[in-house]
């Protein structure tokens, strides 16, 4: 799947550029894109180092486990194939909470950590498990209480009520999360997981 998309994006891009006589733009774009990728990863270093340090404390102290236990009825329904007391559950819940509160920066390290734990349960290391896909689906559609970036942009352009979109965003993300979970379940059954 990723192979096809990657191949498609590049080859279609090059063909369109060639037809438009715009190949110079592809040259620049290739290196710009590469630079952007590295820039994002370097930006991630500080966040990952800091939050994985904090998460280690949360895990060693048993905080993560307690947290997972409190929310386990919901989590267990969403991730039926992850054992209730598995460390993955704590990270999954930490990731979901961070997304909920719009702490995008903190959500990524916890999501990665959750994926690493889920990978330990994975019998075929190259292939995504249903639980991984559910986590991914929850992340791309995630319920958001406070869309901080958007509020900042709105303030920047002199909005009279920058936070008025909080309610609409909450509703829209609630719908997308619900649909993501339903689609995920449907696909699970359809592809025989």
């Amino acid at each position, binding site marked *: 799947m*990723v192979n096809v998309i990657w191949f498609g994006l590049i080859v*279609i891009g090059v063909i369109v550029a060639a037809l438009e006589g*715009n190949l110079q733009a592809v040259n620049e774009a290739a290196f710009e894109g590469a630079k952007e990728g590295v820039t994002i990863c370097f930006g991630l270093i500080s966040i990952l180092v800091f939050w994985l*340090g904090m998460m280690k404390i949360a895990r060693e102290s048993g905080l993560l486990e307690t947290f997972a236990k409190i929310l386990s009825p919901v989590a267990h329904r969403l991730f039926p194939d992850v054992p209730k007391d598995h460390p993955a559950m704590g990270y999954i819940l930490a990731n979901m909470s961070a997304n909920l509160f719009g702490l995008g920066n903190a959500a990524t390290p916890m999501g990665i950590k959750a994926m690493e734990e889920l990978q330990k349960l994975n019998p075929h290391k190259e292939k995504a498990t249903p639980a991984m896909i559910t986590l991914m689906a929850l992340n791309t559609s995630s319920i958001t209480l406070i869309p901080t970036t958007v509020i900042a942009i709105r303030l920047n352009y002199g909005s009279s009520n920058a936070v008025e*979109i909080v309610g609409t965003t909450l509703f829209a993300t609630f719908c997308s999360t619900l*649909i993501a979970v339903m689609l995920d379940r449907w696909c699970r059954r359809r592809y025989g997981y």
Partner: protein
Amino acid sequence: MYTVITAISVWAIPALICFILIYGIIKGLPVYETFVEGAKEGFGTAINIIPHLVGMMVAVSIFRASGALDYLLLFISPVLSLLYIPAEVVPLAIIRPISGAGALAITSDLIAQYGPDSFIGRLASTMQGSTDTTLYVLTVYFGAIGVRKIGYALKVGLLADLAGALAAILIVTIVFG
């Protein structure tokens, strides 16, 4: 409402940090050593993601710069118009799952052009806040653990994005329309 929300966003991270630390101390943990031990993993994880993200960013960047994205928009716009998606936000709906930076640029542009308190401004704000960049999430999360076969993940992600965009239009029309 506004003061409550700003207070929450200012307090959330400091409160969380303190809570984790205090809980650790109460449990008798050497918090600093534990922090450093966990933090060590961060660097390697970030470096592992580089090849995946560079690969994907190059592809997206070429696709956009070549003009192929514009053709895609041209092709999809009439279909989305049938779904009552206002033409102005169609590019945002399409780019949001592909490129986070691209979507943010379009949102800022729409807000600057139509004003944050206009219908288009509110709709763009809601759509921007509603989903995450699916391609980025896929690349980072699956890249970090070296999973290559992603199954139905992309399908679910993109359809959820579409659902989010439609829900945003629906609710913004009802509330502000």
